[in-house]
């Protein structure tokens, strides 16, 4: 589990990047999973909850520009998946 301080640091780094990718997407929470290898970001765009995962090592080692690109592609992939579900009528 992340300490509150580390959690806040992560949020403070990612939130502005995310805003520049999509101003309507809000970052709610960041968790480190039990293997301590995967960072899970909990976002929300409008009514859609979005969960993006990335290797914690990548988060630490990537430059901001690379992280922004990773966030943009991750967000787009999740929004596309949500849209596919809506189109297929699978959304409950």
């Amino acid at each position: 589990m992340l300490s509150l301080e580390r959690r806040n640091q992560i949020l403070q780094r990612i939130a502005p990047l995310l805003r520049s990718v999509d101003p309507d997407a809000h970052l709610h929470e960041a968790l480190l999973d039990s293997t301590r290898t995967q960072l899970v970001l909990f976002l929300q765009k409008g009514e859609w909850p979005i969960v993006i995962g990335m290797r914690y090592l990548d988060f630490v080692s990537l430059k901001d520009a690379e992280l922004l690109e990773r966030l943009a592609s991750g967000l787009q992939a999740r929004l596309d998946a949500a849209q596919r579900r809506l189109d297929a009528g699978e959304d409950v």
Partner: protein
Amino acid sequence: MFPRLKRLLLGSPLRTAEMHEQRLSKVAALTVFASDNLSSAAYATEEILLVLVVVGTALLHSVIPVAASIAVLLIIVVFSYAQLIHAYPSGGGAYTVAKENLGVGAGLVAAAALLIDYVLTVAVSVAAGVAALTSAYHTLFPYRTAIGVAAIVIVLLANLRGVRESARVFAVPVYTFIFATFFMIAAGLWRHFVEGITLPPPQITPETDLAAAGAGILVLRAFSQGCTALTGVEAVSNGVQAFRQPVVRNAQVTLYVMAAILGGMFLGISYVAFEFGIVPKADGSETVLSQIARIVFGQGIFYYVMQFSTMLILILAANTCFAGFPRLASILAGDRFVPRQLANMGDRLVFSNGIVVLGVLATVLLVYFSGSVHALLPLYAIGVFLSFTLSQSGLVVHWWHSAAPGRGWRLALNAIGALVTGAVLLIIAYFKFFHGAWVVVVAVPAIMFLFWKTRRHYFHVSMQLSMSDTVRPRLARHTVIVPVPATPNKVILTAIEYATSISRDVIPVTLNTDGRPREEILESWRKQFQDVPLIVLDSPYRAVVLPLLRFIQEVEDLRHDDKVTVLLPEFVPARWWHNLLHNQTSLLLKGALLFRPGIVVTSVPHHLRD
């Protein structure tokens, strides 16, 4: 409350070891297996007359040759069935015989026909039994449907309690009916021929003239209606195992005696009805049998004995089906053609589910046809003759492959039986088709379709559950999502404790539906659960279930290689009606997640005190 009511109505559970078989003498077996068949005498003559009277009195004399033809048919069928007893001493229903000798398809046709006929037998027998009662007490006539439903419920409960086909209980009404009927016939003949009592010819307004209707057509229609007299002949062959040794001989003798009694009663009633010129009442308010009894006995005690014994034997005929239908359904369930629940024995060592299904279906039929025997009968008999024909045809194949002594004449006898019952089947189907038999003609293939669909389902399930080609899965990671309210409470404490005991990846999630500051919700959470971060989702339109489902799906997509469990904290009120005072969000979530593959749903109950 329900368990107590169940015990009161059905009695205490029985141990499996308490199941025992009854071995019956011929006299006792007659009472157990013959009630369905013998009771047909109560309405078969009336059904013949109902066809003949459409042209007034011109064809009433045909009741005798029609009844005689049916009696000849009875002899053929009985001798054919005696061979079935010989071939299948362990009990061979039409399903077993047709399946073993003609193939599964033919067996299923027979099974579908038999199931339909068991339902119809209950409805018809109860309706006819109630008609015997309302004939004696006309004031009850408007309530005949309600009385019929009550009778089915009583028989249903008695069978759920496990009232076995008790020969001692059955003997009184069965033998009373037999003796009362023969006494009535004898007394009727005495009054007519010795005392010279005659009645004025019946006044009937013809619905059509003889030339237009066609005498031959009407006689054949009357014959097809009267064939209901043969229903129940197969009961003895189905229950051979219940006879004492030598089972084959005893069962065959019982079958012959049953046929002789039925033939005698049926011909006697038809003859007396003809001699007295009795015709069915147009409004159905009094049966032909009641009219004969009233003329012969007056309004005395013998009349009521006749009516009550008729009613009781007809109810017993319905009771016979409550043994036959569940037994056949359990055999079909064993072969995976009907739901497996039908093979389960209940608390009282009876096939409770089959009994309930039969009771419900018969009640629906009885109510739909307003308790009228005449309205129900066109559907009847076609299934019986279909199963007769298939079992006789199956026996022809059986003897063909057999090396048993006498196979030649037995084969010939069953071939005649198959041909005759097949021809009668065609006659019944043709003449009753537009009067209701089409329902059965449509229902048999429809039921067969369901049989195959059911079997196919079970096959697919067994293939999917089979472990023969399974690679043992690796130990997967386990993510637990716990939907919680925005304000923590004891229920949540229990749930989070449990969640953290089964996984290190626990994600509590809540919905901010009333626009509270997020930090306030998080602070309140952290005070109780420092180690488990809460995810707060905004729900500006106050939706609860949909955002949670979307969130669960997002986590599932991320962790698709892992196990995802949704753990639902629930409190259980002390009183059932307290549930009405609370949101049922957990229930809605459970329902929505039921059909999501790969997601496990678990409840963590927290019991409240009163």
